[in-house]
């Protein structure tokens, strides 16, 4: 079996498994999984830029929040139906990502980290400053009866789960395809050695800009979906912490792997969820777990799988 075929089966298999889990898992885990899938989309967007292109952004919360507010404000203030509002959210994220990419890509390395961080911080403060519109830190609730997407009431468990699964699957497959494509390989080449790549005739700046835009747009789609599926938008999601999360997820799951983001989110979610039911000091457990993981799974969970068993893992 060729690697391409193996990879296709793997991805379809993951999607099928997620679909099956809806019928198997207890109710609580089903709703957790819906949330995990949306966050995994966010992580996949981040991974495209960090894991594949080698650009470490500390400002992805800006894109997530832009998608979230794009959809949320359209629905909250203008009673825009969910479908066009979703498009608005995604487009807003795209535009913001393009602007940030345009400016931030003049820098590289740590400067890129800081510039994205600062833009995101400015975005967060802007959300607070226009508190009259955004309801600031408190955020706002999106009316439950308006949360109907393509005829499905996504405030119900089933519709929500499958809406999340659909978004996840689309992005998951698209990224799996993308990273095997010549463009994806170019991104990896940039990650490994940008100067060399440029001197092989690739327009690295353009490729990086496209990567930022794609990554930001996917993250924005995740934000819009989050607001729609869970009915809330707020400035908390624009804080630095929410820029660090995808980094953590991706590093845990395995940067530069298609499966890593999902694995990372699942791991982190259940690490907190399970340890918090054992003890109040769950952050301590989480902290120790993270440290141990770096010691014993240096390339993240999926990265370790790839290193130890499945060399072909995409």
């Amino acid at each position: 079996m060729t690697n391409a075929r193996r990879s296709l089966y793997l991805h379809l298999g993951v999607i099928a498994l997620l679909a099956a889990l809806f019928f198997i898992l207890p109710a609580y885990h089903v709703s957790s999984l819906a949330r995990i899938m949306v966050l995994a989309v966010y992580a996949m967007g981040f991974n495209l830029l960090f894991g594949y292109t080698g650009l470490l952004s500390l400002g992805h919360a800006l894109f997530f929040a832009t998608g979230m507010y794009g959809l949320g404000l359209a629905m909250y203030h203008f009673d825009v139906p969910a479908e066009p509002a979703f498009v608005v959210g995604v487009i807003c994220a795209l535009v913001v990502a393009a602007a940030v990419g345009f400016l931030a890509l003049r820098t590289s390395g740590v400067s890129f980290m800081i510039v994205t961080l600062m833009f995101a911080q400015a975005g967060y403060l802007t959300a607070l400053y226009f508190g009259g519109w955004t309801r600031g830190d408190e955020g706002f609730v999106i009316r439950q009866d308006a949360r109907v997407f393509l005829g499905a009431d996504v405030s119900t468990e089933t519709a929500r789960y499958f809406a999340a699964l659909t978004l996840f699957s689309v992005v998951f497959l698209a990224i799996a395809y993308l990273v095997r494509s010549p463009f994806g390989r170019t991104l990896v080449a940039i990650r490994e050695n940008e100067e060399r790549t440029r001197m092989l005739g690739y327009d690295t700046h353009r490729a990086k800009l496209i990567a930022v835009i794609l990554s930001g747009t996917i993250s924005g789609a995740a934000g819009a979906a989050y607001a729609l599926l869970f009915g809330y938008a707020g400035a908390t999601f624009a804080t630095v912490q929410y820029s660090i999360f995808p980094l953590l997820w991706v590093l845990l799951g395995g940067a530069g792997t298609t499966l890593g983001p999902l694995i990372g989110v699942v791991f982190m979610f259940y690490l907190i969820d399970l340890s918090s039911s054992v003890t109040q000091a769950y952050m301590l457990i989480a902290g120790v777990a993270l440290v141990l993981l770096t010691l014993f799974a240096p390339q993240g969970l999926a990265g370790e799988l790839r290193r130890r068993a499945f060399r072909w893992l995409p």
Partner: protein
Amino acid sequence: GVAAASSFVPDVARFAHAQSSGPIKIGFQQHATGIGASYGRWYGRTTEAAAARINAMGGINGREVQIIAEDDGTDPKRGAEVVEKFAKQHECDIAFGTLFSHVVYGSAPRAGELKLPYFVVSEGHHVASGALNRYTLQPGITDVKSQVIAMAPFVSENLGKKVTMIYPDFAFGHDHRDFFTEAMTAQGGEIVASIAIPPTETSFTRYFPQIPRETEVLYHVMVGPAVLTFVKELGEFFGPSGPQLFGFIDSLEAVSFGSPGLEFLEGTYFWEGNPRHAQADQSEHDKAYRAAVGVNEMGASVEDEKDVSTYAHMFGCWETLNIIKAGMEASGYSGPGDRASLIEAVEAMTDMPESDDHPQGAKKFNGKTHQTFGHQYISKVMDGKLVKQHTTSIEDGMYEDEVDYTQMSF
């Protein structure tokens, strides 16, 4: 029954006569970590004490009350997850106890979807503003709009007409700004400046010059760990000659008035949800409540007098639990199937007289807006103690209904 409250492990036999002897599970959304942790700890202690008391009195409908606390990290995302966990994993009967309003906003939609009664103790104006849903109620603590409105007459009559407001650039601060400005104007006063301080700010002096000279009253309401700095720097800025200060005690919850730098607050006024320092006219109910929670006359832990409570807010947990009990008993609550009737029973409540169940004072509950209204206290700092100067009437804090939840379907 208070004496028995010390037995935290309830006697199983006492609950034997219940139809279903399983406990009533109350999911307690606790700010154990994150920015709300100081409050979360005391909300926890109060809730434990209230539950122990209820259990000592035979539980609810003969069933033991079991508090299931989950940390929400003072984060709206985790808040929603915790609500899901209550509903689906712990199979709680209700969820309860949230303070920070962004967590309320983040969690309430899920509570509504899950049809899980969600009793918040947040003082935010979210419930009564109609932003939430029929499953979300705030019966145990007055909301900020009401608190603020009730302050205006006292401020304008006793302290001055020209007010400068300093508040965090959060929705919570904006509520203060909007409602107080309106109420003050109605009293013939004037807001001469409003200074919104960005969150995460740790030093404040540079903003103080924006306070106009003509200011007669400085109205401050800051939250978070930087408030001590705020107050201290305010003192250093004005030196001996400043305007009258009127603050919300939110700034200094869990902070001892003996802390260095706070000498400067001597002679200033504070809103208090519930007087921290036991007053001369302390009621028996307050005495009993303090004893049950383990708080001394100075509002600090009896075990450690440096450990100051969040006295102005945490009574809300105590009272809310008692209201839940009353609601469950009135509706004959026996399980999740009766959640709607529990809501209806609470909505039907009106007057809540001062009692051991309501040690903070009498309240009027508005079933349409799901919001309770109570007395507010204004205290003055005298010799490092908060001495009550004025108690507002319940009517002082009334405003027109903005929503009628009872018209919404379940």
